[in-house]
Structure formats: C-alpha cells, structure tokens
C-alpha cells in the first residue's frame, strides 16, 4: 500500500511540475456575461454579436463581427509573470479570419499590451488551433502580472469558438 501511495504522489508531483490547465471557463457554461457564472467579457470597441449555441454536447460561442474594427471577447484575469509559457488552444469554425491573443495587464490590472497568434482563416470545418505564448518582459509600469485570453474575429467574420483551453507551463 505504501508503495502504491508513493507512486501515486510521485506521478502527481511530476504532472504538477510539467503543466497545469488554468480554469478560464473555456466550456462557456454558466449564464450572463462577466463574473463567476460566465467569466467572459465583450469588448465595447471591438464589437461582436455574441450568441451561445448548444454544440457537440457542450457550448460554442458565435462571434459575429459588427464594428468594422473586428470583434473580441476576453476572459478573466490569470496571474502571469514574464518568461512564463502558456499554451492556448481553441476549436473554431465559420467564416472569416480569427486570431488568438493573450491580453497583458500590470499588477494594477491596467492594460499593458498583448501577444497574439498569426491571423488564421476559418472554414466550416471545425479545427483545433493552438498557440504557445511566452509572457514578455516589459519592465516598469507595463510589466505583466496578469493575462486574459482574447478571441478575435476580423471585420466581416462570423466564427464559432468551442472548448477554449489555457495550459500554463510551470517549468
């Protein structure tokens, strides 16, 4: 029994050192916008019509861009530090061009820029897109202390996002 327990603890410890899924509400369940029930927020400038759909046994969020500047929703703040690695993945389908982003915030929770993936074309085929980010060092007022996941749709786009996942590499 002792041996089994030790093995169990060892496996858990190795796993914990490698990577950890961050709870960002990426299954889009819950109700409302913002807060514990549904920790996603709409952007008042990069506007999009947001609709939630029952999809594949879960929820997909449809972002239909309406501002001609592109549309975006973003998630709740997650503690981060320069040099840390995050892997963001999402399933997407629809039409137009999408982009994955990590929005950076300083320790006062003020916007401090972003890191983004390349733009990617989206078709009716559901595809899983993955991007690995390294939090940049921006000494001074813009030193990142938090990140938020951003899902972006270029002007004219209409994209369904499904199963957003953020994994933090703790090495």
């Amino acid at each position: 029994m002792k041996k089994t327990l030790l093995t169990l603890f060892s496996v858990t410890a190795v796993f914990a050192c490698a990577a950890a899924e961050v709870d960002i509400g990426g299954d889009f369940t819950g109700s409302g916008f913002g807060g514990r029930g549904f920790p996603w927020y709409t952007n008042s400038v990069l506007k999009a019509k947001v609709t939630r759909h029952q999809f594949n046994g879960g929820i997909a969020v449809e972002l239909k861009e309406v501002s001609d500047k592109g549309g975006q929703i973003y998630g709740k703040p997650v503690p981060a530090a320069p040099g840390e690695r995050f892997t963001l993945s999402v399933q997407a389908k629809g039409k137009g061009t999408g982009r994955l982003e990590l929005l950076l915030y300083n320790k006062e929770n003020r916007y401090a820029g972003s890191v983004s993936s390349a733009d990617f074309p989206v078709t009716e085929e559901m595809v899983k897109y993955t991007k690995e980010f390294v939090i940049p060092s921006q000494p001074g007022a813009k030193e990142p202390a938090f990140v938020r996941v951003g899902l972006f749709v270029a002007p004219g786009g209409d994209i369904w996002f499904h199963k957003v996942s953020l994994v933090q590499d703790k090495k």
Partner: protein
Amino acid sequence: MMTAKSAAVFLFSLAVWAGAAGADVTREEYTSPLETGTRPRRTPHTLIYARFQPYDLGGNYRDEWYDRPLFVNSLWRDASRRGESWKKEAELLKKYEIAGVTVLGNAYASFNREVIARSEQGDFSGLDVMAGLGWPRSEFDGKTPASEKLYQRMVRHIRETLDGKNILHIDGKIPFFCYGGTTDSGAHNLRTRLKKDGLDSRVQLFAPLWLNVYGEFNNTGKLSQETLKKMESVLREKLDVYDGFNFTNCFYTRNLRGDDVLGKVFRPELDKKYLAPLFSKVYADPKYRGKLLGFTLDHGYIGDIDNGVNQAECGTAVLRRQIDTQLLYDPDIISLAEWNEVNENTCFQPTLTNSWTIRRLIRFYARFLKGLPPAPCEGDDLSIPDLVVSVRWNIQAGEEYRIELLNIPDTPEEGTYRVALSLTDENGKLLRKMGEDTFRRNKLTAVTYKVNAEAWHKRVRAVIPQLEITYKGRTFRMEPAVFTRLSAVTANNAKELRLPLRDQWTPGKFVFSALPRPDGSVRIKAEAAGKELLNSLEVLDGKFTAVSAWPEDGLKQADHYWIAVKCHRRYETIMPFRIRVAGTGDYRWRPWGRPYCSPVRLERDKEGWFGSPRCHFWHSGPAGMVGIPKNDCENAVIECVIGNTPAVRVPFADLRKKRVTAAEPGDCVQLELELRDELPDHPAPLNSKRAAIDACVFSKMNDPMYSVLAVTAEGKIFRSRPVFIRKIERTAPLRIYSTTAKKAVTAEVPAFQIPDIRYKFSPEYGNILGNDTAKEFDATLGGGLSRGQTPRRGALPRDLPQMAPIWEKTADGYSLKFTGGSYLSFPAAAVPNGAFTLEMELKTDSSANQYLFFTGQDRQGAVGLAVVDGKLHGSYGSGSTGFGHVLTALPTDIAVTPGVWHTVKVAYDLEHIRFEVDGKGQTMPLTLRPAWTAPSLFGNFFTPASGAGFAKPGPFTGHLRKLRILHNAKVDPPKIREVKL
C-alpha cells in the same frame, strides 16, 4: 489537523482493515442516539398513527409487483369477505403497538366512514382513529362553485368525524392531521366559516411546514441570527392561523454520480443546535399554548409509478435517521406514510420484501416513546439475535453492493453478540469475508458494508450473504433468505430486501429445480414442507411470479387455459365493458379487483357476458383473466366490447399459437390478451404444511432467474437461492457508469446480458411489435396506457384519431405507417440504463418538425430524437439535484430529407454520442450519466422538460420499417484537425 503520528495510526488502521476485507470495501456503523427534545408536548407521549389508504388485502392485483402485502388473500376479493381483510389488518396493526390509524378523510370520504365505523367494532379495540385531511388547494371563500363545493365537502367530513366515537381528541379538540397544504388565506377563510358554522372550536388544523435553511447550513455549517429570527417569524405567523405543523426536517437531493440517486438528507446537528430549540422557544410562548407538532414518517419510495427510485431506502437508514431527528422535537404525533399504499410501495404493514422489519422498528420506537423497555416480539425464537439483514434486490454493473446488518434491541439489559459476514456467489463460492462485528443487544445499531462489485459481473449472477453468529454462548451459521441479483445493463428494481432473522422460515423439506426444455420452456419443480402451515409457495422469475401453488378453489390450471385480459383508454372515463367466450361452455372470468381495476360482475348474464355498464377507466380499465376449458377450447372465440367500439373477436386457437395479441377497436381504446402458463393473480392461502409445484413455463425475460418464495401462515419467509437458466459461455465488454470511479469504464459481463433487440416488422401479433430477444422488450402499436407508462402521463393530443400506426405491405416486407399522432410504445426495459445504440429505417412524409424517439418523463438518461428544421436533433436527460428534470440539447447538422428512406443511428458509449443518417455522422463528447429508466415512444410525444433545444414539434408522419436497440455502444472519438499557429 492530522499530525504525523495520527496519520500513521490512521494509515495503519486502514491497512489492517483493507487486509481483512479488501481495499474496495467500506464499513459504516451508526447507533441511534434516541435523544428527545424539550418542546412542551400536548400528548402524554408521542402518538404514532398509520395512515390507511383505500386498499385491502384482497384486491389490487396488477400483473406486476415490486412488493406486495405479506398477507394478501385473493379470496377476500369477494365483497362478502371484506370483513376478513379488515380483521387481519387490525390484528397486524396491534402488533406495531402504535396508537391507531388515520385516513385522508376528505379525499376518501366513504372509506373514512368505513374506517371510523370499523374502529368502533371489536377487531379494532385498542386502536383509535386520528382524523386526517388532504388539504385541497382552495381559498374556501365560496366565491366560485368549486370553492363552495370544497368547503361543503370539508364541512361534511368534519361533521362525520366529529360524530365518531373512537376519534383522537387532544385538549378536547379533534386534530385533523394534514397531508399537502393550502394557502394561509385559504386556511384563514376556512376557519372563519367554520366558526360561523359552530365547528371551529372543535377542530385543530395543521399546516405542512418546511423551512428554507438547508442551503445556508450546508454552506456554512450554522444558521445566522438573522435566519433564525426570520424562521421564528415564519413559525409565529403560521401558528397564528393553524393549530399545528406537519414539519418536514430534511431536504431531497439527487446524487447524480452515486448510488441511490434520489434521497432524503437529514442534518441532525441543524435540528439539535438550531431548529429544535427554536421550536421549543416558540411553543413555550403562552400565546401558542396548546399548539401541536407532528411529523410524517416514511421509509423510502421505490415504486413502479416513476420506474425506480423516488426516494432511496438505503437499507433501513432512511427510516431510522428520520425518526431519530424527529424525536429531537418531542413531537405530539408521528404519522406513518403509509400503512398500505400498495401501488407506491411505501407500506408500513408487513410485505414480501420488507418482511416484518418495519414492524420491529416501529414497535421498538413506539415502546421507547411510551417509556417501555425493549422486548422480543411474541413468538420470537430467542436463540437467535433480533438482527435484520437488508440488501438491494438488484444492482447493475457500476453500482456498489451494499448490505446492512441492524440490531433491534429486544432487552434493556447489557449484552453483546458477534457476527462475521461473508459474501458468496449463487453457487456458494466465497467472494468476500468481512471482519467480525460486535453488537450490543440493547442498542439500535446498524453496520453497513459497501463493496465495489464491478469485477464480479463477469462471472457472478447473485450475491448471497452468509453469517457466522456467536450469540448466548453458541456459534452457528445462518444464510439469510435474501440475495442481490447482478444485472449488466439495467437494474429496474431498486427495492431493498429486508429480513429479520427471526422472521425467516426454514422448511423441513425443500426441493427445487428449473430445467430448460427443447421447446424453450422451463420445467419447474418445487416443493416445500415443514411443521408450519403455508400461506403461499411461488416461483419467481426476477420480480414476477412465474408460477404459484394454488389451493383447490375451482381455479384449476389443469382444467383451464388462463388468459390475462387488460384494456386501457387514453383518457379517464366511465364506460361499459363486456367479455364472454363463444363456442365453449365452462369458461370463467376472474377480475383483478379494486381500486384500479373496475369491478366487473362475477356472474354471467343470459347471453353469457360478464360485464358492467359503468367501468372506471383511469387509463387502465377493467382487467382480469378468462379461463377457457381445455377440453372444449377448439372453437372458442374471446369476445370483448368496450364502450361503443366494435366487438373484438379473438379465436382462441389463434391466441394459443401467438400467446399474445393486442387490438385497438377505436376511440383510443387498447385491448391486450395474453395466454399464461400460470394463474395471473395473487395466490390464495394454501393452509397446508406441504405445497408443491410442477409446471412448464415460458419466460419473458432475457435472463430468466428463478427462485422459490414461500410464506407461512404466520408470515415467516423462505426465499431460495436463485437458479439461472442461461449459462455464461462468453463475456463481452460493456460500457458502464462506475459510481465508485465516477466516470464511464468498460466492464466484462456475460455476453447474453447485453440485449440486441431487433423488432419484427410483421402484423402477425396484431398491435404487438415483437422481437426475438425476449418478450420483456416487446413494444405495442399505440397503447402503453397503464400506470407508469409514458403515453398515460404525456401530452398526447386529446383528439388523437388512432393510437396504433398501420401495417403496410411493401415489396420486401412490412412497414408501419404513422399518421396524425400514432406511435409505438416501448417498455422501460427496452432502453438500457447505460450505453445504447438505436438504429432505425424511416421515411418522413413532410418537412415539419417532428418527434422520432423519446424516453418518457425526461429522466436522467432519457434519450430523445427528433427532426428539427430538417436536421436530426438529439437530447439527453441530464438530471438535476432537485425534483425537476433537465434535458441537454444535442443538435446536429445532419439533414433528414422528406420522402427518402433513411437509416438513422444514434450511439452513446457514455463518453461520446454519435448521430448518423445514412452513414453521415457527427460525434459529440457527452459524459452524462444515465440513472433512471422509463418507457419510451416512437412517433409521438409527451411534455418535454426545458433544455430540449426546440419548441414542441409535432408527431412523426411517415413510415418505419426497421428498429434495433442494442444495450451497448462503441463510439470512436471524433478526429479533429489540429493547426499550430
């Protein structure tokens, strides 16, 4: 905090325990504290009353049972013998040592009068009647005819009760203990009017009460002063209107991922620290002097109405923990719900599955409340302990095996005894050996073991407990007459088998064999004999009676073929029913009795009809059996006329070949006839010290399991080990939900326990849609209107022109044509409580949104399939922690084209669900756990719960020519292209 030392000790204990019994075993011990409160009571001690429902011991055979009273006697169905049933009830009630009985008098007015009258006669001496009230939801203001009618009915009930000579009075008034509730303003209006009629000063009215405090207590472990003040004002406001409460001090929750899905949860710490003191404080206020407090007590609710667990029994824990917390309030009244609710299986009277367990427990508490010491029951064998063994009758792969050993004190003296429990399979091979438990004879103590049973399913069919008992200096072995069947895909019976060792009968001679014959039947031989008189000897097939011994009362199986006759109508109604058999002489009719089978005259009229011009169709109409003489059956034709529909004529020669048929003569009426090997009725008392059975029977079950059940005239029970006809030749992987792992896993189970049902599209059996796997899966064209079945409860349109779809001959067979709401009705067993594959060939006639397949009542695990906006649309019952049901919508992009034959397939392996039309598919992740079976429909609908993802579609219009239900599934996870950015 656990220190290093204590952690080490803990781990050591765990290791020792695991070594003794296996790491997959848990043990729990609970001793009832028997603490009482300080609330000022108005009665000398807490009075216990058993609520009577309008059933008796003679009637109510329904051709199926989860349980039935221990002392049923179908000979008492004859109205002239009803007195004998009452006499027996009185004899049984007295054995509980409770105060008396109560009735929901205004709901069952004539029954209430009969109970009051009986209570004044000799048999009921020593028992009194507590008035009861099923509160109607009314304002009692006389502003509407309905309100006035309810008031007048209430007044009539009160007056009749006031006239009773044997009615419970408290402080010179008559308490009307309640069930359900009305509005406070309605109660106020009632009181005002009763005052005017000079009745109010003589009655005490109760309100049902539940306090909304469990959320706060569950989250914080305490109640705030603010909440307590609020609750105090609730109590005071209600006591200003009512004379007392029927208080419910628990909440219901669904354990969506565990065993015993829905159950009551008690919080004794909440009762002890907060609520009981609050009640004491309010009741001590001189303003509320004389106010009363009562509770309703039940022991679970496992019934066919909702096809499973309405409220888990958990051995006897629900009953014990409930009454233990109620005692903390020092109540005036405890009302047992119910003494004889035969349909809902909540009986407190002795039954086949509970034996005398409930009696022993209630008697113990009743004596405790009266200040009497624990004592053995009259006639007890004092050489064995008063130990009760409780197990589930049936568990399915993934559920834990649970066994409870309960000591019921029979003495106030100190003293101990030891019990070592072992578990064996049906052949006696050891599965687990537990450690030895020590019980104190004067303590109400339960020891409960739970075992992960998943690996057993591969080769074990039933689990049998074995006890080694050291009692009063003697060590001996006992095999309690209970067992737990292990089923692979579905356990449609969550009822407990409870048996006090002292109420077990051991026959002096016992013989039993069940051997398969080449024609598919099974030759059953059983014999039991002993010193005691026997009441009944039956052989069960699963939970159904396969064959029973009958006394020589004229219903001779040797002389007659017996045919079960059932008829139903879509709507509740009163209409005529007549039945006769032409072309033969000495035929019989035997009705199944009240209250849910309308009484049909027992005498033939001049034209040979049995019947009645006024039969009550509460969806199910008259039912019973027809006997056709074996020596004069060649030209017999069964004729049945229901309402104004044309006569249905079924030649017996035809039925003899098919064994089963159904017809819809019109007007939403369904008639079903089935030739039986046994007499489909409760057995009549044998009054013999020996009984024997020698019969050949055909099983309806996919996995027949025969066991002998014998009951003595004193109500002692013998239940044999089960015998299985099908042998395990190979196993197969089955996707199951594991309640220990809390997720889907794969288990090896006997291959034949995974049904693959392929329905036969042939009009051969009339309105029966047969299959080759087992008759238990047969569907009906239309119908399905008896209790618990989906269409009865659902929202089928009232103007439904025809329930049954129509057979159409095609080039390569038959198809069924569905028009205007016709449907197929499937029994609960047809859809598994687990992984499934549903496959059908269909053609829709229109592009309208329409239902295809639906499991009824939106249960957790209900399967839904529809065409919405031209696409296949699924749904799945996701369950909720409350009473409500929720569906998860599963829309697809797969088109269903009108006028084109499609092969539609749905497969769910508990991790992914896949929808396919003509091979084009869509796979979705889905991990919802099925936990409840229910009957299903193809083609029509019922009221769906929220979450289906569409407005109510119409019925299916089109054709169906193939339908297959496999109780397993394999779904490959969807492959998704990945792009690294």
